[in-house]
């Protein structure tokens, strides 16, 4: 861990303006309303590791991914890629770090242009970044990439609709690899796939990581998948990181009450007949999050301080936890 991290995220924040139109606000005397999608999130990712973000829908994990990819601008905070601040650089493909990162999306049906041939889809990043301009060279590279993701080089001439969901996700992976990135952001890469196909894609992603020394940011709501893929895990709740820990430690000794409840809530095929412990309540509206610790209305360990004061992250062995009860040593 002495090495400088590849990705450093500090106090990353993103608000969305969800106010009604100006005229409605004046007529109905409503204030502006903002949705706090991501608030003061800090973490770092070391070269070659898989850092996973988990959480329920609406917790802000995809917003973090989109900010790291440069698809949306942060409202505050800094993202450093290999030491260079990339939030200062505008969007668009010309920023020097952009060719070193790529993204794989959730839905392989929506993320491939149905009118393009597979060969053109995979070659696009090569052309966009001007990595090659010789036609034969590009063709050779595309064929290699298809072989890497275990498809047939002859599939170049086909269209996306001729492939199954798993094969399409392989095409997405080939496209993501085509500009030889170091860092790949994977936003729920297997959520749209069936389990037997999910296993193929997860195995492939791990093989590619070993082969090309890739660094992954892996976003998922599925804790079992995350356990399988991640080196370190960050748990998000309502736009904030509540716990960061090495994967093994998070599963063997979760600290934050939300992490504990989340782990208890996962159905496991080895527990036939046993009932899961359900978390009571639901995720609150992020437009009007609870005061203090956002998790306190659902937390079995909540006390007065949790309702008034937002907990700051405190270091634990190997990770950090944002919880008053943990900080005070009560749990």
């Amino acid at each position, binding site marked *: 861990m002495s090495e400088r991290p590849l990705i450093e995220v500090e106090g990353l924040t993103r608000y969305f303006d969800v106010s009604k139109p100006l005229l409605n606000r004046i007529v109905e005397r409503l204030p502006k309303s903002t949705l706090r999608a991501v608030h003061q999130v800090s973490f770092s990712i070391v070269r070659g590791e898989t850092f996973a973000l988990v959480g*329920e*829908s609406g917790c802000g994990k995809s917003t973090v991914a989109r900010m790291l990819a440069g698809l949306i601008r942060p409202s505050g905070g800094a993202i450093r890629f290999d030491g260079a601040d990339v939030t200062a650089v505008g969007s668009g493909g010309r920023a020097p770090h952009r060719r070193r990162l790529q993204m794989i999306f959730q839905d392989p049906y929506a993320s491939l242009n149905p009118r393009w041939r597979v060969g053109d889809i995979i070659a696009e990043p090569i052309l966009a970044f001007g990595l090659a301009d010789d036609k034969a060279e590009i063709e050779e590279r595309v064929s290699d990439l298809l072989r890497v993701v275990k498809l047939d080089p002859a599939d170049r001439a086909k269209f996306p609709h001729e492939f*199954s*969901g*798993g*094969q399409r996700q392989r095409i997405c992976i080939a496209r993501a690899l085509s500009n030889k990135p170091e860092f790949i952001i994977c936003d729920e890469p297997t959520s749209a796939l*069936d*389990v*037997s*196909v*999910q*296993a*193929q894609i*997860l*195995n492939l992603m*791990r093989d590619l990581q070993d082969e090309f020394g890739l660094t992954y940011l892996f976003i998922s*709501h*599925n*804790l*079992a*998948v995350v*356990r*399988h893929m991640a080196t370190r895990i960050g748990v998000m709740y309502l736009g904030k990181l509540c716990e960061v820990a090495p994967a*093994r430690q998070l*599963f063997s000794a979760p600290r934050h009450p939300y992490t504990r*409840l*989340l*782990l208890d*809530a*996962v*159905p*496991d*095929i*080895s*527990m*036939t*007949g*046993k*009932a*899961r*412990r*359900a*978390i*009571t309540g*639901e*995720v609150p509206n992020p437009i009007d999050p609870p005061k203090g610790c956002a998790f306190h209305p659902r937390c079995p360990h909540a006390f007065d301080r949790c309702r008034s004061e937002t907990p700051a992250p405190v270091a634990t062995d190997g990770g950090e936890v944002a919880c008053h009860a943990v900080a005070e040593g009560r749990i």
Partner: protein
Amino acid sequence: MSAVAGALLSVRGLRVEFATRAGPLVAVDDVSFDIAPGEVLGVVGESGAGKSLTGTAIIGLLDPPGRIAAGEVWLEGRRIDNLPPEQIRKIRGRRIGMVFQDPLTSLDPLYTIGEQLTETILTHMPMSQAKARRRALDLLAEVGIPAPEARIDAYPHQFSGGMRQRVVIALALAAEPVLVIADEPTTALDVSVQAQIITLLKRTCREHGAAVMLITHDMGVIAETADRVAVMYAGRVVELGPVHDVIGHARHPYTSGLMASIPLISHEAPRLQQIEGSMPRLTAIPPGCAFHPRCPKAFERCGRERPDMMAAGTSRAACWLYAPEVVRS
């Protein structure tokens, strides 16, 4: 072919076809199973396996050009697959309740949930408007809607996803059905809410004495909920047995491959086992056993002859490995 004595629901040789210009597509093929009163039968499989179509065929909601091409469906000793639409409509809702995946699309956005509940109650049970509203309030309280008096006149969009699914469960149970068909009831929900809904579904159905046909792709949900489980692949049931046996000692190579490919939260594996290839499209179902091109244990007979369900330990599996002559040698 007729109902098994004592079974609540009997499905025999069900075949669902879609007429296309290139000829009929068989989406569900020769599916047979029974559900006992009060039992929870899990139906599990990957997308396109025909599990949802089996459910919609039972309640007579197949959209044309889909149709039941063969087979029989018996409910409480009465054949229901050949009933005219107005009669099956009386059974739907009254004898069979339904819970679908997306709670937002199964509730009408233009009516309050109170109106939708009382309408369902009054359609199936003769009682006064005031009594029906009283019953609707009881149902909402039963499915865990806080302050039902305040919430009954709210519209579906004013509820969260988990709360909407609770309302859908209340609707399904409104007329005291004997069977609830739940098609992916928790797939659209977050894991923390999923546990609440599964517990609720299990508890309310037990209290009302309703059997459940639980259709899902999630083995974890099946494991904690079902009594027996049917595994479907490419339109057919490939394994059927008690949930412990199917999960602990899967007999069919597809089931064991499926179980091994699920990442577990309870332990770490360097590599997941994977089943090569993907499920065949309906237009290209292989001859013989549909799983044989992906099966590690396939032998010559598998590509030639289609296996029927045969006894395999405490379960039944459609696999030639369990043919009497193979088992003996």
